[in-house]
């Protein structure tokens, strides 16, 4: 069985250490915030200038001066801080944010990521994604393993215009947790979703993939 979006979020949330500053991209990564294990303190960074993002406001708390990077109204937690865009990206580009989870259209065996532009379709812009992939220390890419037609999104070489080159080393899909061995241009299969065989994952991966000796089924 492939993982649900929620199970993917849980798998990533478990790896976030106590005391981490974390930036979550839109889509599945946003769900990670809902599953941070009890007892761990985590500060969520919103790149428009907030560290310590809280839940959505109640109707009475809505305030136009408090939004997140997705332009949704939000609240702040105790101990949060607010800063300008340049300072926000000093945190990101300077490598101060401990972890980033973001979505992608494609990744490849050289750690390249494409996530912002499909030629011929409407181009809305990259927002902060190019800064995040270039600057964050610990990036987890969260995506479905294949597209709707069943084509692999874990490629030998990205086909779409890149968001960043050589910056992705860990990918969680609905089928597997995979590391990218950039030095040898290949994927290493570390964990499979429950009921999914390593063979199935390999067959649905376009780029070269080796199966780790200690490959195991994911706890979900």
């Amino acid at each position: 069985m492939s993982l649900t979006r929620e199970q993917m979020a849980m798998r990533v949330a478990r790896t976030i250490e106590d005391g981490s500053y974390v930036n979550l991209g839109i889509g599945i990564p946003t769900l990670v915030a809902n599953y941070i294990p009890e007892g761990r303190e985590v500060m969520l960074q919103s790149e428009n200038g907030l560290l310590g993002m809280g839940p959505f406001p109640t109707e009475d708390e809505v305030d136009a001066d408090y939004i997140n990077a997705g332009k949704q109204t939000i609240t702040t937690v105790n101990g949060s801080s607010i800063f300008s865009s340049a300072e926000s990206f000093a945190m990101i580009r300077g490598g101060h944010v401990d972890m980033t989870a973001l979505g992608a259209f494609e990744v490849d065996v050289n750690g390249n990521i494409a996530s912002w532009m499909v030629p011929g379709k409407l181009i809305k812009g990259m927002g902060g994604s190019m800064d995040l992939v270039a600057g964050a220390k610990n990036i987890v890419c969260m995506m479905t393993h294949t597209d709707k037609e069943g084509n692999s999104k874990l490629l030998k070489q990205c086909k779409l215009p890149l968001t960043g080159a050589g910056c992705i080393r860990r990918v969680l899909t609905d089928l597997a947790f995979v590391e990218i061995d950039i030095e040898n241009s290949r994927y290493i299969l570390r964990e499979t979703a429950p009921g999914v065989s390593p063979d199935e994952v390999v067959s649905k991966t376009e780029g070269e993939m080796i199966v780790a000796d200690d490959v195991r089924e994911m706890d979900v």
Partner: protein
Amino acid sequence: MSGFDKVVNSYEEAMEGLADGMTVLAGGFGLSGIPENLINQIKKLGVKDLTVVSNNCGVDGFGLGILLEDKQIKKMVASYVGENKLFERQMMSGELEVELTPQGTLAEKLRAGGAGIPAFFTATAYGTPIGEGKEVREFHGRPHILEQAITGDFSIVKAWKADRYGNAIYRGTARNFNPEIATAGRICVMEVEEIVEPGELDPNYIHTPGIFVDRLIQGTFEKRIERRTVREA
């Protein structure tokens, strides 16, 4: 105006001197912290062929989006522009030139522009279409691209409170690009919700020092919300 007093009494006075072909740097993220009345004044002035630098371009009918209605913008420099049908149409037809810039690079270009730094190297966008044609240099074993600073003829920013000298405080995430934008324009026009007397704001809590501000005006703001997202009480 006399001495350090930056206060002007009308929006006409605030935007005086803005002319066709100029570059306007505008604060705000989405619709939060945008200088909405200064944008309205630019619309009223009818100036054309503007280059506008701002993270986004407003929405249809509000914020920078209204400057598209009479085709006042020739070129837009932004990181994300997906919220606007008119923008889309003008971009697709080639009437509007668009330079997409990574958000952090955009903030740093403005910071550098205001700080007298002409260019800087960054790893952001190396190997992507944005990095094509730009000078590449390796630092610490990693390739970086050369990005040039941004300056402009006018900066238009929105703060929460300022004293008459232009010492300003922002509120919440409405701060965003405003502090960097304030430093990067030849003439910085700031609009605020409240103007107070010098001495009323604690100097320890000033975000933009008055030296960066040339004209200051108090306005009333609609503060439209783009994505009202709430939870049950």
